[in-house]
């Protein structure tokens, strides 16, 4: 089993969510993050004090999948999240040791979906 962490542009979230649903990996956990990447931050000014804000708002997706769904999940995210501009984000993939569904106590691969 694999665990995907994807950092994307906030305004792409809805498209990515739809793409994931179409790719049959609908289950996902979403959260707000700030990212410093290659994309330039926007300077902020408060009463004359300039601050080179380097952190930009991003959205983080976490998706646990069985191996055979990995590629289509990555694919779905990449295609739907891409604008071609710097700042589009990254996908990180981890080995997932175990999963459990709290409601039923089910474990492993079948608990993932």
């Amino acid at each position, binding site marked *: 089993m694999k665990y995907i962490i994807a950092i994307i*542009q906030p*305004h792409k*979230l*809805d*498209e990515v969510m739809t793409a994931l649903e179409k790719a049959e990996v609908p289950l996902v956990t979403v959260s*707000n993050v*700030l990212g410093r990447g290659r994309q330039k931050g*926007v*300077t*902020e*000014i*408060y009463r004359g004090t300039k601050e080179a*804000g380097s*952190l930009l*708002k991003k959205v983080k997706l976490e998706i646990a999948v069985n191996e055979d769904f990995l590629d289509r999940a990555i694919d779905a995210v990449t295609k739907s999240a891409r604008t071609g*501009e710097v700042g589009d984000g990254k996908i990180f993939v981890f080995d997932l040791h175990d999963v459990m569904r709290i409601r039923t106590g089910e474990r492993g691969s079948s608990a993932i979906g």
Partner: protein
Amino acid sequence: MNTGDTAWVLVSTALVFAMTIPGLAFFYGGLVRRKNVLSILMQCFIIMCVISLQWVLFGYSLSFGPDTGQGIIGGLKWAGLNYVGGQPNADYAATIPHSVFMIFQCMFAVITPALMIGAFAERMKFSAFLVFTILWATLVYDPLAHWVWGTGGWMRNLGGLDFAGGIVVHASSGVSALVLCLLLGKRVGYQKTPFRPHNLPFTVLGGALLWFGWFGFNAGSALAANDLAANAFVTTHIATAAAGLTWALIEWQQHGKPTILGTVTGAVAGLVAITPACGFVNPMNAIFIGIIVAFICYLAVAVIKAKLGYDDALDAFGVHGVGGIWGTIAVGLFAEKAVNSAGANGLFFGGAQLWPQLIMAVVAPLFAGVMTFIIYKLVDALMCARVKEKDETIGLDLTQQSEAAYTVIE
């Protein structure tokens, strides 16, 4: 001069001030996305600054100054507040200092262009917005105010009645808002991704303050603390209550749930509709005006807009344009001389007031719409009215103002 009347109009001026900031600013500010809230607050705040200056420098004179002859516009005789001092001007208000009348009207001149912010929210460039607003105030608001309220104004001479600004304020800005949002185009992602209000409590705060300030707007327009002010106060309150409740009930029936956003929107629609009528109709008829406006504006906002697909982001047209026109017509139906002897009788009271009302309701929007089109085209040619797509995506707060509304960390 009468101290009671003066006190009341001074207070009313402060109340109308509070309608724009913080009222309207928060009403609209809560409805946009987190990344654009400051742009709304900024637009409302800078309108307060810039139009107040425009008003004392020449706007007031254009609107209320001595007519230049054809009932079209006031001259520049009162520019820079010349002749506008502590003595009453009996043409407008015989019992309060002239300067009090002027500053009361100033707040109307300020809020009118601010209402349009709802239409072009989240995508207009700040510089273009600023230039547009100044031109619009001068070329649309000032003439209209003169036509309807100025001594010698042609609509006034025609017998048109607009107690507190159904035509001058709401219909004019609402229709201009529609033209603007059609010209500017839709926001990126409109109808594809959901645009949820980022802070509905702010919207409720703003809505409540609008209602609060509107007592000054409508009852203050009596320009005295008398029974007419009392009637305007009561009808304003009741029409609003009726409209708010009606909208909630419509939603309940349509979607199974009444929402606070719907209720507040209904209340604002009620305030708009009763504005031209509050000093001419009785409280029971105010209830009808409120109920009807809820139905009409609901239709405009929730049905027609979705069908036609224009992006009137915060429903400036759907609420102010539609509601203001309905209120203006309602005067022609429900006005009674029994309520205000300086008024007239509407259709239901055997009078012919409907005709001047209809003329106003057609001509003023038309004028406002055409002028808005021209001014927009000019501004767009000069400086490109819309922000770049990339800036729109990042948000106007950061790209137009280099500020963020809320910190994220800590």
